[in-house]
């Protein structure tokens, strides 16, 4: 399933428990105060559940922004 930016940001907001209004597509998600090991697991679960996508660690480590995540989902 393709990820539209708005839907993706909404799903991300729920997964990492951050106000949707404060998430911008060019943000580096690792800079969020909510970002920690649990947020990572929640993101992985969201990607699997909503988009059927599994991102290998070596690729995930190179992703920086929300846009990178969306691109990765859409290219998977």
């Amino acid at each position, binding site marked *: 399933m393709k990820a539209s930016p708005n839907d993706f940001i909404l799903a991300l907001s729920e997964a990492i428990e951050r106000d949707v209004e404060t998430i911008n597509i060019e943000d580096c998600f690792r800079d969020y105060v909510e970002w*920690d*090991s*649990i947020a*990572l*697991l*929640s993101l*992985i*679960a969201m990607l*699997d*559940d909503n988009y059927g996508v*599994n*991102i*290998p*660690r070596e690729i*995930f480590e190179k992703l920086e922004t929300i846009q990178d995540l969306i691109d990765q989902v859409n290219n998977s």
Partner: protein
Amino acid sequence: MAKLEFTNVGVRAIAACVPKHVRSNNQLEVLLGSIELEKVLQNIGIREMRQVSEATTPADLCCAAAERLFIDNSASKDEIDVVLFLSQNGDFKIPATSPSIQYRLGLPTTTACLDLTLACSGYIYALSTAFAYASIPGVKNVLLLVGETFSQIVSDKDKVNAPLYGDAGTATLISKGDFGSSIFQLYSDGSGADAIKIEAGGARCPANSETVLPKEREDGNIRSGHQLYMDGMEVFNFTLKVVPKSVKDALAETGENVDSIDFFVFHQANRFMIDFFVKKLKIPKDKVPISLDTFGNVSSATIPLTLVTRLKNELVVSDKKVLISGFGAGLSWGTAMLRMNCPVVSELVEL
């Protein structure tokens, strides 16, 4: 995929033993800080676990569970044909642990004894082995002992593993009888061998003065080469990918569905993961027992421990269809659909 079907073999009795000593995860505040700790505990759902003393091994816990099982059952020790002992923490490198268990329990020398080792998927695999032995003409009863003491192999300065693991030993009696058919589906993917690992102490990396030293590793975690490492992200990715599919495949194979199965007993890895399976597979929550809240993840022993501590009252009154699913290091995973015909379920033993 290995698909095994057994007819008229089943679980006749189950017992479990945990150490008396309760370890609370609140003591990890020093390691994680209070805010982070609360968030982690909320997600993993593990508040406390049981912990052995240095002198107690998985074999000790299993023997205590087995003794209880014999007291509560009509099966006499003379009727045991095979003992299987599954653990990743056997008493010695040599000899295997199961012959010493035969002696300790006072079983006849005609008993066949075999050690098995795997991981958190181990109960599914070992149970299938027990079912296979019990299917053979001439074999009446197989005693399966599954126990782990991860508190002895996890560093308390490892943020990933320290909050997760507890200790337990279990005994399951498998016999011929009017059980109907049970199926096991077993899988492996060794490409993920590095995801959960104790690197030293085996033939590939023997113990030396270096391997025993605690060292700082990824994310400030401190452990020696003889303590457990886990790549949480890889394991989580793997689990999400394979476990729901394996459960769906087992349901399809047996012609069962979420409504027709009485209980789904998952390996108690952590609460977040089990909640994900429940959501993904649309299983009613009351069909999915949880024991990790008070016992933690006891690796291969989680499934029998959950049967004993959370389903005893249900299992003993009427026939049940129980789906069990385990997954872990290897990587290795498996799912089984068991027909439980009112097994004798002992009260939990504390040692």
